[in-house]
């Protein structure tokens, strides 16, 4: 199994490299002069040149890339054009907020999604299935910014039991986590359901029933244990959706996380920050998928021992 982990990790490295090149090229693909754009329309020639120096745009492209990579390894992600503070600092302020939000959202949506999926899957074509799947279909169709605003309207404005914006207490997490998790719970539910239905057709489930095991035992110990492998994979993939969705949800709730930072940076044309954030999002996604791959090996005895 160790060799499997090592192989997977090595396979990821070229992707990371390509991602870094991609992100690097990103900023330099902007039509027009990035220095001029960063400096703003009213900037003087000197100011523009200064910014060009700052951003290192004078040097040959390969050297720029080399410096870029070196700086990343050193942990230096540049300086924010907007606040003039290190990007690291800006990110550091908000990182944990986003992690908390993402974590809570993932936790509740995985649990609810799995429960609905199993509930629907084992009652295929009956009312429970219909109910579960209609809920799930709605869940993936709901625009998060719409439901977010509606929830604010009901819970913060009318009922006044939850805060509208910001972060700090657990109460601040409730509505954003719910909003962010809806789409994910729905997808997990749908996927779990089809996995359960597939597994129920297997011969070994017939054997389990032939042994006289209680239906609930059959579903959770035999069926789900097999579905779990693919369900975990899907949850991992959803983390991408989580990272992306957090951008919108944070914006709706004015939640001080990496998502709002990205939006602000885009509106301000703060390229160093945009660049750093995109890189961070991508890297997180890649690492999460790697973890999922490893989990897959852990849960699948054939890979673990074979």
């Amino acid at each position, binding site marked *: 199994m160790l060799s499997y982990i090592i192989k997977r990790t090595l396979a990821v490295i070229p992707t990371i490299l390509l991602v870094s090149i991609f992100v690097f090229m990103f900023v330099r693909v902007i039509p027009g002069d990035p220095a001029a754009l960063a400096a703003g329309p009213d900037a003087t020639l000197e100011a523009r040149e200064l910014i060009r120096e700052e951003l290192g745009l004078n040097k040959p492209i390969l050297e720029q890339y080399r410096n870029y990579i070196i700086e990343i390894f050193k942990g230096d992600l540049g300086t924010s054009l907007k606040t003039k503070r290190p990007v690291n600092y800006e990110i550091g302020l908000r990182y944990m907020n986003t992690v908390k939000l993402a974590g809570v959202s993932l936790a509740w949506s995985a649990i609810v999604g799995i429960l609905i999926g199993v509930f629907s899957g084992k009652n295929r074509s009956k009312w429970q299935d219909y109910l579960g799947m209609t809920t799930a279909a709605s869940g993936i169709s709901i625009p998060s910014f719409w439901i977010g605003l509606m929830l604010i309207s009901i819970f913060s404005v009318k009922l006044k039991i939850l805060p509208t914006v910001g972060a700090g207490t657990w109460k601040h997490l409730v509505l954003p986590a719910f909003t962010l998790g809806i789409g994910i719970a729905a997808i997990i539910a749908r996927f779990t359901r089809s996995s359960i239905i597939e597994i129920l057709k297997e011969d*070994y489930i017939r054997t389990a029933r032939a042994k006289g*095991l209680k239906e609930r035992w059959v579903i959770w110990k035999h069926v789900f244990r097999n579905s779990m492998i693919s369900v975990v994979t899907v949850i991992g993939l959803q983390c991408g959706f989580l990272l992306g969705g957090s951008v919108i949800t944070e914006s709706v709730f004015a939640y001080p996380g990496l998502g709002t930072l990205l939006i602000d940076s885009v509106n301000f044309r703060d390229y160093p920050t945009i660049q750093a954030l995109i890189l961070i999002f991508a890297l997180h996604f890649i690492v999460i998928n790697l973890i999922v791959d490893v989990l897959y090996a852990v849960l699948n005895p054939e890979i673990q021992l074979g």
Partner: protein
Amino acid sequence: MTENKAKNILEIKNMHTYFFTDNGVVKSVDGVDITLKEGSTLGIVGESGSGKSVTALSVMNLLMETKGRVVEGEIIFDGKDILKLSNEDQRKLRGGEIAMIFQEPMTSLNPVLKIGDQITEAILLHTKTTKAEAKIKVLDMLNKINIPRAERIMNEYPFQLSGGQRQRIMIAMALVCNPKILIADEPTTALDVTIQAQILELMKELKDMIGTSIMFITHDLGVVAEVCDEVVVMYCGKVVESADVYSIFENTKHPYTKGLLASIPKLGEHIERLESIPGNVPNPKHMPKGCKFSPRCKEAISICTEKEPEFFEYPDGHKSRCWLCKKEYGGEL
């Protein structure tokens, strides 16, 4: 001449199991009477589609993932009609009193659970034992079925075992609770011939040791000759012949059974072509009128294509669903 002194442990009476598909109703089992005597091995023989597996699944109430239901009939076990029991009561019988093993050992074990776990599950469910006691019973059973290094196998996963070993595990799993009846649905069909012989030998031994009555479903008459005491032949969802194993081979009555026997190549025989039964099993949507076997029957007479024959019983208990038998006996019973 055998006296029916032994008790009947299972009686299937006039059972009809139909499948309700999008394309219509398929009458998989269409009025079947089967009796299993205590301590004996009953062979159920037939081609694919004859309804033999469905009969077994009906007894076990394992039709839940399918579109099949038992629409009529009784299954008497232990004095009760199990079809009238609740799903919960039927479940309690499964595994504990009536056990079943299946044809495909490669896919019949859960790939992500350890072997030991899968066997002890059954014991813990049906008997009141502690985990430690259960483990001992399992090891004991594994030794009985000649699995070497039983202790180690307990901690392994199905993919680490061969087909023959997996089938032994299935047998162990089925017999570990000392069931009164074991239904074996083509347990050796998917195995090599040499392994097949081992498994059959094993089943005979265990049967003597534990005293289980066996319902052995197969299409292989050689296996029937090897292990069965009584035989029942099925065609198109009905029983067409039933007798003890000697009578079936030496005194075959039904043309279908005769055809099956004739198509087995015999050692030492010099023939140019193997005999076969002409035609195909009829399409369920286009069942022939009268006797279902008549289109393929060499001995068919005019009444065969008009009326479905009844099940005629000879004095020695040999039964056959054929008008020729009535003719032979001048209309007895």
